[in-house]
Each structure stands twice: as C-alpha cells, then as structure tokens.
C-alpha cells in the first residue's frame, strides 16, 4: 500500500468536468457542476435519490446521449479532449471508459461470449487462443476465474447475482478501458456478494480510475478515496472521503450523513 505521502504525489487528474448542466426535456437535472476525477483512485458519488448522481456519471461516457430529449452543456475533459467536442466519436470513447450498472446485466450468452463479444467486434483479438487468454485474464482480474473456469459455456444468466456483477466487470475490463464507471453496482446484491465486489474494486484501483455511485454511506467510506456529495443537481461538497465524513464543511452534508433525511 502506498503511504499517504505517495498518494499525494501520484495524484493526477484523469477526467475533469467543467460547468456541466443537464436537462431532461424541460427539467434541469444538473446545474453547472464541476469536478475532477483523480487517476487510479476511487471516487464515490453520494446524495439523496434523484439528486443527479447517475446523470453525472452517465455524462462521463456520454451514455446520456441515448436518452430522448436530453440536453447537455459544459465540458468533460478526457485525455486532453472535451468528450462532447464534435469530432469525438462516442463509440470510440465508450470503449475507453467502461461502465457497470446497478442491476447486473449479462448478455443472454455464455460466460465466454459475454466477455469475448466486444473484443471480437473491436478487432482487438483475432486468434482463438488469444481470445481464450483474454477471457481468462479478464475473469481473473474480476476475481471470477476460479469459480467459473470449468463452465465457460454456461449462460451468464445462470450465475448468482454477485457473480453476474463480477462478470459484467470482467466484460468491461476486457476491452481495456482506463476508466470504470459504476452506478450502484452492489445495490442489487446480498451482503456477502457486496463484500466480494467491494474487495474487487479495491484491487482494481491499482490499474483503473473508478467512479462509483452509491446510496450506502458505509460503502463510500469503505471503498472510496474521494467522495462528492450531490444535492438537487449540485455538488455540495467534494473532498477526500475521510474529511467529508468526519468534518463535513457544509450543513447539508452533515444532515445527510447523520441520517437526518434521505
């Protein structure tokens, strides 16, 4: 484990959001939000339901483009480019920024094909043996290999909830993104599966920059180095997790984390 000093030194910004506003039709969901995502760290987004966490997250890989009637203003910088710039290709972008969803959503295919699907189309891997290696490697990184190595041809839907979620993580890793977005990845899981996934997140941050939305404050405290508190479409407070939970600067943050509402 790096010491606190080292962490500070290593800090560099992976993505940087400037003045992001989002409207769904008439309704504004985000109000000029700015925030930096630190490289190789876990950033947690917390806040009451409907405050815009998911909206923010889905702006980072432009998944919100798919929503009918959405309007987005502001900038999201990734690799020195604004992802909303006209020449940026979304499909390309999304292959660099992986995403894991609230409810595990494996494809109705075999475990193997769940992972091989994207690399095959992206042309990352051509040969059968290379693909086998990639599948194995991705499953290993997602901590699932030992559990499924004998039954890669089983449908992904036959796995348990926690395994499915790790399969989805493996699937996202397989195209070697550099950022992983996770929207309440544990909320559909039981406590044991949650613990496994949290541990996995802890390991993944070595190689990936992770942004995670969670409702569970304890979870944010456990896994995240940085935490942002959202409220009604604004970021109220953003700082390293320890200080946010122990010395919140804002009254609203304090109310929220002490369970006064939500």
């Amino acid at each position, binding site marked *: 484990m790096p010491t606190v000093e080292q962490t500070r030194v290593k800090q560099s910004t992976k993505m940087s959001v400037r003045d992001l506003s989002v409207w769904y039709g008439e309704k504004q969901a985000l109000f000029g939000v700015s925030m930096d995502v630190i490289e190789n760290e876990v950033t947690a987004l917390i806040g009451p339901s409907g405050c815009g966490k998911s909206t923010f997250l889905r702006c980072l890989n432009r998944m919100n483009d798919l929503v009918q009637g959405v309007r987005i203003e502001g900038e999201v910088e990734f690799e020195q480019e604004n992802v909303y710039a006209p020449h940026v*290709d979304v499909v390309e972008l999304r292959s660099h920024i992986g995403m894991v969803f609230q409810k595990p959503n494996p494809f109705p295919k075999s475990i193997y094909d769940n992972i091989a699907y994207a690399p095959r189309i992206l042309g990352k891997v051509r040969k059968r043996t290379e693909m086998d290696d990639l599948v194995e490697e991705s499953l290993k990184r997602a901590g699932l290999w030992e559990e499924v190595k004998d039954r890669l041809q089983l449908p992904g839907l036959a796995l348990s909830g926690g395994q499915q979620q790790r399969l989805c993580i493996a699937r996202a890793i397989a195209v070697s993104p550099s950022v992983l977005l996770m929207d309440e990845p544990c909320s559909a899981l039981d406590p044991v599966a949650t613990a496994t996934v949290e541990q996995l997140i802890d390991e993944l941050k070595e190689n990936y920059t992770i942004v995670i939305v969670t409702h569970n404050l304890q979870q944010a405290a456990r896994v995240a180095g940085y935490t942002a508190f959202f409220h009604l479409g604004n970021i109220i407070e953003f700082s390293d997790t320890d200080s946010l939970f122990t010395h919140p600067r804002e009254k609203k943050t304090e109310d929220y984390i002490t369970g006064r509402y939500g």
Partner: protein
Amino acid sequence: MNQRISLQPSRRLKKRYRAEKRFKAYCLGALLLALTFLVVFFADMIHQGHSAFAQTQLKVDVTYNADTVKFTMESVDEDVAPLVSRAFFRQIPRRVKNDPALMDTTETIWVVANSDIDQYRKGHIDSLDPDDLATLERLEADGDVAMGFNKGLFFSGDSKIPSNAGLWSAFVGSIYVMLVVLAVSFPIGVATAIYLEEFAPDNRFTQAIEININNLAAVPSILFGLLGLAIFINFFGVPRSSALAGGLTLSLMTLPVIIISTRAALRAVPQNIRQGAQAVGASRWQSVRDHVLPLSLPGILTGTIIGIAQAMGETAPLLLIGMIAYIPDAPTSMTQAATVLPAQIFTWAGMPERAYVSLTAAGILVLLTLLILLNASAVLLRNRFERRW
C-alpha cells in the same frame, strides 16, 4: 499501457459505421416497402372503384298509359329504350299506382342508363351496338346525358342489374350481425377475462383455458364456418343465412380477441388499487366492479371495437352458412336472411358483367372507410383514456 488514446474514429470503426448505415437502410427500406404496399393497394382500389360512385343518366320523355304500364319498354322512345336501365322500366306500374295522376301523361325526367352505356362512357368497354351508339351520340349532342352521383350504391340493395346494385342491405345486415357479435362476445369475453385475470386459481385447468383461448385466436376462420354450420344451423336449428347464425359464428371468432385484450386492460390496472380496496374491506368482486373495471373500461372497449372490426371484415366462415347469396332486401329481424358487406363484395367479385368490377372496388372502398373509422376510433379511445401509472 501508455499508448496515446485517440477519440477519433479508427479505420476499423469507419468500416463498422458503414455496416451500421447499411443495416439501418435495410430496416428503413423494409418499412417503406410495407408502406408502399399500402399506398399501391389504396391507389389501385381508388383507381378501380372511383368511377362506380358516378353513373350515367339520360333525360328522356316517359309516357304513362295503359299500354306502357303493361309493356313498360314502350314508355320511352323506341330507339332510346335500349339505353335505359331495366330497373327504371319495372318501376313504371308502381309509379302509376302510387300516383294515379300520372296516367295518360308524359313527363321529362332523368333516368339511369343501362350499364353498357355507363361502362362505355367511362371507357371500360370500347364497343357498343351501332344503333345504340348513334342514339347515345345524339343524346349527348342534345345535352341529355349527364353523370350523376350513384345514390343507388348506398341506398339500394343487391341487384342483378349493375346500374341498380347497391350496398344498403349488406350494410344493414352487417349492423345486425355486429349487434349479435357484440351482445354475445362482449359479456362472455369480458366475464372470461375477469375470471382468468382476477379469480382463477393458478392450476392446470386454468392454464388449459388460457392455452385454448390463445389457440382459438389462431384457428383458421373457415373452421369456424364448419362449426357454425354443424352446431348452430344443423344442431340448434338457427335459420340458415340469418344474421343470428352469422353473428353467433363470428362471435365465437371474436371472443378470443376480446378476452385477450380485456385481460391486457385488466392487467394494466396496478395491483395496489385492488389491494387498497380490499384492505378497506371490499370483497374481491366489489374491488373488481368498483375500481378495476371502470379503470380498464377504455382498454376493454378498444379491444372490443378492434374485435368487432375484424368480425365485420370476415367472409370465409359465412361462405358455409349461406350468407353469400342473393339477398337484396335489408333484414328486419335477426332470423331473416341477411348478407354482410364483405359477402356482398365477394358476390360482386364473382359476377360476370364488367360493371361489377368497379362496383366491387367501390364496395371495398366503402367497407375500408368504415373499418378504418372503427379502428381509428379505437385508437383515439386508447390514446385519450390511456392511463400511465
């Protein structure tokens, strides 16, 4: 891992985009093709049928006297008589009977031309008896020939004289048949749906009923005709060709449609409405009657209208129960012989005279208009009252 990431499309991605475009084009093409069929179809029907809405009329002098009442063709000029529709001549005795003052007078009126003349003027046939042609040209020169709206198409019944044939009796027959269908399949269909959706225990028998209903929805309609013939007509003795026989047969066909859509409408009422009602002490039936049914009514009606519209266009089963016949009088009771619009269309489609081709197409246009109106009202009803929970 340090290779520079570019967010611009790679070569491979460009290729993938081309595939994307192609696929989208195929899909759009398919949709356009389907819509083209629709356009071609309607254009063809209008092309074939529009001329039947007008009909050739002649201005002639009609003489009424004891002689012409007997030999009606002699009531107009000898050379004009072959041009006039026979349907006019046979009314002459009646005209005189109804209005004795006409006797021994001559009046000048517009009468319907016979269908050869009509077809010739519309360009559907290109030869005419030379004498008749000469007479026609003379009348045209005098301004005694005109095209008028074909009222008979809407207001008279079937006829073996094309210029006299109309849809009225078939229309009335359709209404009668639809009334029977409504009276039988609506209550039974809704009751079945309520039973299955709200009351039935989940056991094998219930599943059998459900599968059976889904199957009935797809049984070939001609088999319903066999059923109607064997059960309703031969077994129960319902009069052949009657609106009742046709209606009962079509009711059984419509039943699954109504059941399936009613079930969907009932299912769309959220469970918490039922729970709310039962939690305050309403019985199951009370909660259905007071809350679920009123809420699902628009959906039920929509399904019913669509079912009725389907039944209204059905022909095959009627072939077997005697409703494809010459029935020119509108029925006045459920047990009288009746025909329906699609049956009339089928009859006309089989007639040898050319004039019936455009009559058939015109009949089709009328039927389609009715059906589209019915379906549109169903769609409106659905959009208007559809509730999102």
